[in-house]
């Protein structure tokens, strides 16, 4: 679905991505883990064309997007939605208007059809009856839910999640994770999530990839990933309390 080939990116003269090769499987939930400052969010932004690589290629389906701009890039972006770290809700709009925003602006939908679809999504994310509130009146978890509703409302093929549980308490983080997993299983979109939440991500992800020193150090199905014996990966994933199963050396 999404494929990155030899992607390199420098920010402020510092190399961040140093030849990332990654293939995201369609219809699955893939989580990218890695230390802070490794460039996970940068990697995610390359997938949707918010950043262009200095070198390498980014493929979405059969379209290479790294040199696209304007209308052609927008055509590719119509297949995507993204949930940002801070949810990126528009401050001046209510929750309802935020969720309705892509329907009104992109699909030019009007009237009861918008209301019906927005209410449906708000109910799915547990925000029924909250449409009139403004982002400033919401808790961190509720904002993430509203962001998720906005991401889901266009029924995209691919949704990117940039650290969706940052700043939330463990219970709220778990409920957001469960919500993401439920929605992904229900609608079957391709999900790419950047997260630090170990070990929770192993329970909800189909695939896990680790970014280390600007490259993908390992990528495997979630269960297999926990068996990796590479010392760095082992240390990183066991700090969170994961039971590392005995098995093959990968990475």
């Amino acid at each position, binding site marked *: 679905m999404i494929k990155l080939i030899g992607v390199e990116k420098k920010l402020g003269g510092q190399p961040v991505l140093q030849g990332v090769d990654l293939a995201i499987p369609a219809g699955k939930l893939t989580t990218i883990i890695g230390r802070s400052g490794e460039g996970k969010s940068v990697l995610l932004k390359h997938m949707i064309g*918010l950043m262009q690589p200095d070198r390498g290629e980014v493929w979405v389906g059969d379209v290479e997007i790294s040199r696209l701009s304007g209308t052609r890039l927008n055509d590719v972006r119509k297949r995507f939605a993204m949930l940002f770290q801070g949810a990126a809700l528009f401050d001046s709009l209510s929750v309802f208007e935020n969720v309705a925003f892509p329907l009104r602006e992109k699909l030019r939908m009007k009237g009861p059809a918008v209301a019906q679809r927005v209410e449906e999504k708000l109910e799915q994310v547990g925000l029924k009856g909250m449409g009139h509130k403004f982002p400033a009146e919401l808790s961190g978890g509720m904002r993430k839910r509203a962001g998720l509703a906005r991401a889901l409302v*266009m029924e995209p093929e691919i949704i990117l999640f940039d650290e969706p549980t940052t700043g939330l308490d463990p219970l709220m983080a778990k409920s957001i994770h469960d919500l993401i997993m439920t929605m992904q299983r229900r609608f079957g979109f391709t999900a790419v999530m950047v997260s630090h939440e170990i070990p929770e991500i192993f329970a909800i992800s189909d695939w896990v990839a680790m970014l280390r020193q600007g490259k993908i150090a390992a990528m495997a199905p979630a269960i297999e990933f926990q068996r990796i014996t590479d010392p760095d990966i082992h240390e990183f994933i066991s700090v969170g309390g994961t039971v590392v199963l005995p098995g093959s050396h990968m990475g």
Partner: protein
Amino acid sequence: MIIKMVERIGAPVVARVEEMGRMLLFVLSAFAWLMRPPFRFSHMLKQLHFIGYKSTFVVVLTAGFTGMVLALQGYYSLRKFGSEGLLGSAVALSMIRELGPVLAALMVTARAGSAMTAEVGIMRITEQIDALDTMAINPMQYLIAPKLVAGLIGVPLLVAIFDVVGIYGGYLVGVDLLGVNAGSYWNSIESAVEWKDVYGGILKSISFGLIITWICSYKGYYTRQSAEGLGTATTEAVVLSSVVILVWDYFLTSVLL
């Protein structure tokens, strides 16, 4: 050694040239997106309300007192030559040609321009601009272009209000307080003010409207990702807009005269 020295001197120059190029591309891109559907009239009206209508009070206040002080100063200067009757033309010409466009533009920069930089900058920092991009909605078209159009329409209207209020402010002091003949006040305006004065003022105010919205939205759009960066961007936007307005005013005046 010499190469390093040249590099050290040249680096800030190159950076400035690069920024100027980026600013030019920014405004060209906004106008290019303006020409493409969908046309967002409601956004433009909202911005016009913010830049124009909400600046009216401060513009009226500034205009009134500017006209009053101009009449006060003008009266005592003209009285030395026995030409108090020309007070109206002195106030009106100063207002229409210079003070109206420049002072109104500076007030709009302080009130609406700074708010514009802060608004766009916060949208950048909180990834709301990235969110627009991911929804395949061009931020230049959705966010910036309506502000530019609102500036081009709103500032000339404010300048017109400024001129009228300023002339009446001068009337209040000159005629009602200092005893200048009302008929000669209005007659001197009628005989001295020509169409090219009004035309020059309109031309100035249109260009100032563009300068304010261009610089202020640009500074917000490319703000650094921190509260300090936003503060710096807002300060830079107000200072740069004000300086460019004054410099551009000089060049435009020298061409128009």
